[in-house]
């Protein structure tokens, strides 16, 4: 997030898109509700009438994967009406003319045709967002899990820069991180192209710094992403895979393909707290510890350092994951894994990570610190881009609309999108063994529009078979007007009816390599009583 969570409460306008905030980030939704009580306008652009959408001042259901079009459409209107923040554009950005040209063609009429958003509503949204004192954009995977994920995010950045709604409190472009430590694991370079702190592996000077610190030569080549590694197994290039605390067999797109890869890989290590679907495929399973059984830090979605503290001893012979990793490092003959506790690991990583440099366990204990925190006197940064962007001037990027990779056709006439429920979490490894949560819901379902349900001759509670070009699952039906005709939604928590058997792994965003989970084409068939 460019801004911190508490700041949301003081925004004058909050534009939420691709985030089911009440389900996936309830305590951020709490701030948004507070903001609304204080008079903020809340706008939700989402293909489903989610809970947060039902509470909004304006909710519009865009067609799946049409985000670049409506964002360009907003900019088109803002420029036509002269609502842009010209002094911000002049002083703080570059590339404005190209974007101005690019959005010229996105007339409200054309945008309505692509997105299904009525042109009057689009104009209203443009006016509220541009003219409010402090407008904040909040988004989540509904924006990023598309082949145009990077385009979508850049378009939102264009919109924020055009109106100067960034670099001040309660403004900004705010992605909500889905997992407790997605921010931290990305900061810590669990990504194939960076060292900790977003330092390029291809930059020689930086590589030398890390070679010196870690005492050995490092690879100058960008590595493979999760999806590429799975493909590399199939191509015979990747022989050994170490999986820490993830369940790709359920979380990754096209599970059938992932399952085969995990069976085919020569050596698979899984370190987890449960014998997950993925762990069952392993050659070695190492029992880690839950968050209650170890010390360490997480970095929250607003770049805030947080401690976790050991409450109990690890169960049985399980060990804290940091300790296991040190054992493995040492067993491989390396000297760089001699740490008495996570505190010393943090000291080493902070030394090498400029954005973490000023943080340490004592400070995190006493202060609320958001990175970048460059030295011990730096109080940290609740919001970014105050006096300038990381690269100097904010760069506008002209973006053209592209349709999703897989569009409905005669054989697969419906569009599927996926997401979370408030009662479960990701692949359900933890939530589906929690009685309070399974009491609420413990089974997958498909949301269908009443007209579609009627045409299929199914009612709420009935069962259907849902198939895509990649796989097939059986689920119960939930009929709702909260979704457009022709669109269906399945929550992805349930391994026995995994939505990701259906999703399209082949379709990746060319830059972020994110799979297009949020749109694929499916067919739906009624299962009659006897068969079910």
């Amino acid at each position, binding site marked *: 997030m460019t801004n911190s969570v508490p700041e949301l409460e003081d925004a004058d306008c909050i534009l939420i898109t691709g985030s089911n905030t009440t389900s996936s980030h309830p305590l951020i939704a*709490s701030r948004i*509700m507070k903001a609304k009580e204080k008079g903020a306008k809340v706008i939700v652009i989402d293909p489903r009438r989610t809970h947060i959408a039902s509470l909004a001042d304006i909710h519009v259901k865009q067609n799946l994967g049409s985000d670049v079009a409506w964002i360009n459409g907003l900019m088109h209107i803002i420029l036509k009406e002269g609502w842009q923040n010209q002094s911000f554009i002049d002083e703080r950005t570059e590339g404005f003319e190209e974007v101005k040209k690019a959005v010229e063609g996105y007339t409200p009429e054309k945008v309505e045709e692509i997105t299904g958003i009525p042109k009057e509503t689009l104009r209203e949204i443009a006016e509220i967002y541009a003219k409010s004192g402090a407008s904040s954009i909040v988004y989540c995977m509904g924006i990023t899990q598309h082949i145009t994920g990077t385009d979508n995010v850049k378009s939102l950045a264009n919109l924020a820069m055009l109106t100067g709604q960034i670099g001040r409190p309660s403004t900004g472009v705010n992605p909500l991180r889905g997992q407790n430590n997605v921010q931290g694991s990305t900061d810590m370079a669990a990504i194939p192209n960076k060292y900790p702190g977003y330092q390029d592996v291809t930059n020689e000077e930086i590589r030398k710094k890390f070679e010196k610190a870690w005492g050995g030569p490092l690879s100058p080549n960008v590595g493979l992403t999760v999806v590429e590694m799975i493909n590399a197994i199939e191509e015979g290039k990747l022989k050994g895979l170490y999986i820490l605390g993830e369940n790709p067999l359920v979380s990754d797109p096209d599970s059938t393909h992932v399952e085969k890869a995990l069976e085919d890989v020569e050596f698979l290590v899984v370190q987890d707290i449960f014998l997950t679907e993925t762990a069952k495929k392993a050659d070695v399973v190492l029992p880690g510890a839950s968050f209650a059984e170890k010390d360490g830090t997480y970095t929250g979605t607003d770049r805030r350092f947080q401690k976790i503290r050991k409450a109990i001893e690890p169960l049985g012979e399980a060990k804290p994951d940091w300790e296991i990793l040190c054992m493995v490092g040492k067993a491989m003959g390396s000297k760089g894994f001699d740490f008495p506790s996570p505190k010393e690991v943090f000291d080493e990583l902070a030394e090498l990570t400029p954005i973490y440099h000023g943080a340490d366990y004592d400070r995190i*204990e*006493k202060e609320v610190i958001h990175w970048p925190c460059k030295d011990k006197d730096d109080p940290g940064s609740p919001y970014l881009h105050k006096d300038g962007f990381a690269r100097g001037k904010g760069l506008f990027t002209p973006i053209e609309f592209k349709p999703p990779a897989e569009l409905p056709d005669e054989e697969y006439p419906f569009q599927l999108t996926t997401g979370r*429920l408030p009662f479960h979490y990701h692949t359900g490894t933890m939530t589906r063994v929690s009685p309070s949560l399974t*009491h*609420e819901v413990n089974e997958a379902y498909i949301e269908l529009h009443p007209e579609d349900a009627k045409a299929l001759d199914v009612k709420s509670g009935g069962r259907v078979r849902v198939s895509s070009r990649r796989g097939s699952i059986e689920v119960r039906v939930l009929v709702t007007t909260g979704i457009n005709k022709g669109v269906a939604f399945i929550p992805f928590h349930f391994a026995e009816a995994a939505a990701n058997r259906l999703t399209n792994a082949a379709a990746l965003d060319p830059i972020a390599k994110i799979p297009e989970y949020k749109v694929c084409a499916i067919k739906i068939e009624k299962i009659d009583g006897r068969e079910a």
Partner: protein
Amino acid sequence: MDKLKNHVKELLESGEIAGFLGLIDDGGHPVPYLFTKEHLDRLDAMVVPDFRYPMTDILLRIVRKYPEETIGVMVRGCDDRALVELAKNQRIFPELVRPVGIACTKEMAEACRCSQPYPREIHYGEKVEGVNDRSDLAAVESKPLDERLDYWMGQFSKCIKCYGCRNICSMCFCDQCTLEDETLIMTGQSPPEIPIFHLIRAFHMAGRCIDCGLCEEACPAHIPLRSLYRKVREDMADYFGYVTGMDESEKDPLEFLGSEGYEVPSKIDET
């Protein structure tokens, strides 16, 4: 503060209590903690902050495991009212609970709009008078009925079904919770079915709610739950002359409704 610490120390040292449930400073953050004879030095870090944890709710978890021990507990006015109700409902034996009383400051009493910001016995702080402010109820009651319904439906529609109102509540001690009864409230929905989810809880608060307001503090959706339960509490006083949390010997009239030989205590006939 030293007087308070010494009092607790004496209780622990003399063996009068097996443990004292209070708050301890943990890196600048007060958190609940059970002080024991074995670690008397930790009393140095005991604190009385200006916010509250559900002390009597935590007490129940300890009592359930140690039903025969005497436990001391830090109580404010609200916690003490909870103890009265827990005793009535046989969740604690009063002789096995030793309350150590804290009188709330004027600021706290006003912030909480608390009608009785002090416990029966005070060991720390100066007693200040209660605040009688029902402006929240008056504001709702001034609306015409249909607007009032809209108001509450609007509030309830924000609910994310966290069950925080129930979880934080010292009076929600039932083994089975009606809010989880699938035949009454459909599971798996957020917001839950409204208004039934909230009205069931409100009805269950009649004769129970001690007006501590912890539910409202715990509500992520900022629903003015306390006003709802205050109304129920007020009705119990108006119709039955019954006020929760005052007298251990007085029984909840709703427990006896329909029983033979039970005389409704006050003015139900007049209404």
